[in-house]
């Protein structure tokens, strides 16, 4: 029953859409308070469409807060535009269809089968009542295959290891088929081969016109992205292409020069000093 599903957005569509609106996300002068503290301070940011942008910065820099804000999870504010539309103007359902969010350390409170969990990703597309369509089943099967989790489809989520659970959660995020994916530490709990798989998956998504925005604490991995956004103390301090030397200097700088980025063949190695 598992068929290779062609993604809803093909490459020609992506190119047309790209020419209409080059920005997937535009943030204008956004300030977010978490209790007493200002977690984000007057953030201005545009995220190019169809690319992978990695947010990096020290702990507490505001990466997760920014991802949540863009996903509309801290209220639909007027300062954020998705594909040219202020999120305040979007209904919850259309926002949920456009943006897929993968959080870190989200607790799964009850036992659920892997397949049913991934099917929850289809929720924004399904009618109010009624069972999943053939298309929903195809998408879920496809998402499970893409993270190599198909063999566990009937297992309970609690029976899986941390890394395996992370892959299933990634499949859940893929199943939304959103144009914009916000992934908060998607490599958490993954061993190096599966980290490589995840990076390849992200690249594959962007090659099909999807926009991926990740918060990453592993800088070596973030350097595989197209774009790097550096955050510090609630502000965006730098934005640039991942391969530019000046981006590397800015990264070293924000980590107080306690790390160094060395060229290694056509890639880079990040080492602590």
């Amino acid at each position: 029953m598992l068929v290779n599903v062609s993604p809803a957005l093909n490459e020609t569509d992506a190119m047309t859409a790209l020419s209409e609106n080059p920005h997937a996300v535009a943030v204008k002068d956004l300030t977010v308070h978490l209790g007493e503290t200002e977690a984000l301070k007057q953030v201005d940011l545009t995220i190019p469409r169809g690319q992978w942008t990695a947010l990096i910065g020290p702990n507490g820099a505001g990466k997760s807060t920014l991802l949540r804000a863009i996903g509309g999870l801290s209220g639909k504010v007027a300062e954020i535009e998705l594909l040219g539309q202020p999120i305040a103007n979007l209904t919850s359902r259309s926002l949920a269809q456009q943006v897929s969010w993968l959080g870190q350390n989200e607790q799964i409170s009850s036992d659920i089968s892997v397949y049913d969990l991934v099917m929850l990703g289809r929720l924004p597309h399904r009618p109010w009542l009624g069972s999943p369509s053939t298309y929903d089943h195809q998408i879920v099967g496809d998402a499970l295959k893409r993270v190599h989790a198909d063999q566990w489809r009937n297992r309970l989520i609690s029976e899986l290891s941390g890394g395996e659970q992370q892959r299933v959660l990634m499949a859940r995020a893929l199943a939304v088929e959103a144009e914009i994916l916000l992934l908060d530490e998607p490599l958490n709990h993954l061993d190096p081969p599966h980290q490589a798989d995840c990076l390849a998956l992200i690249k594959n998504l962007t090659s099909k016109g999807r926009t991926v925005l990740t918060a990453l604490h592993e800088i070596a991995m973030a350097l595989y992205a197209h774009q790097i956004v550096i955050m510090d103390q609630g502000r965006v301090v730098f934005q640039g292409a991942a391969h530019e030397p000046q981006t590397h200097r800015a990264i070293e700088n924000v980590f107080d020069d306690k790390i160094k980025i060395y060229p290694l063949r056509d890639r880079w190695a990040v080492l602590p000093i």
Partner: protein
Amino acid sequence: MTTGHQRATTWYAWMVFALLLISCLLIAAGICVGSTGFEPINTFLSNPASHDILWHIRLPRSIGAYLAGALLGMTGAIAQGLFRNPLADPYLLGSASGASLGVACALMVFGGSPFAEYWLARLGLTGAAFVGAVSAVLLTLLLARGAQDRLKLLLSGVIVSVIFSAVTSVIAFRSPGILQALQSFLLGSTSFMSWASCVVMGGVLLVGLIASAALARMLDALILGERTAMSLGVYQPVVGGVLILIMSLTTGAAVAHAGLIAFVGLVAPHLGRSFVKANHAKLIGLSTLIGGVLLLAADLLARGLLAPEELPVGILTALLGGGYLCWLMYRQPSTRQTR
């Protein structure tokens, strides 16, 4: 779609069928059990008194017990899904103490003897219990400022429960004449069920089932955590608010007619969950049927064990429920902790 899912669906259909069959058998058994034994069945056609016993006492009582149990089972499954806590029960948000306070007030007004003006008093007590249960939940919602924060809701529930219980105690202390009647309400009993009770509870059950069928998918999404659910378009405060209002109605209807029946609302979802994992539409359905079966079975035991004397059914459900939870805890001590 997949064979695994087809098998699960077929199996679920069989479970529901089996439970419905058991329900019918129990209701039939309910007609046979009572203080006058089988006698009325044999003389059903010839003796008008026997007809009355079966038609106006035993049948509504059995169906009423079933409906009250079903309401509690359904509410328990909703509560456990909404609060993502397997220890949540229908009384969690103060409805039990609210109903007790309502009954205490009504007893004080009617003078402690519900037999004086039987129907009026009975209606007064049922209404007071219902109003008490619903207003306690509304007060809890008000204190927690909506359903935004689960912890605040739980705490507010505790606060309302404690304060309402204290007020109930003051009333009981000031008018000791109502103690016995109040006690019998607190223990739970199905002996006052009439056809009117059945109609009210059946109607509320129907409303509750329709609402929970419509919102079950939202409860499924909340398994992933509040934020992920929100990213899927499921806004917890709204879903929570609606479900809490429904829960206040269903619990109110159950306690108003059957008193404070213990443990059915806690145990039924647990039993259901050993058959269905995290599919709330199915779980709520199963828990509803199990709740009905449990309470009616307990009621039959309560009527039959010491016949012609009767035990308050709440005592039996508490004993059976406590024993079951104990067994559940020792069966799988390590894996249960994480659920």
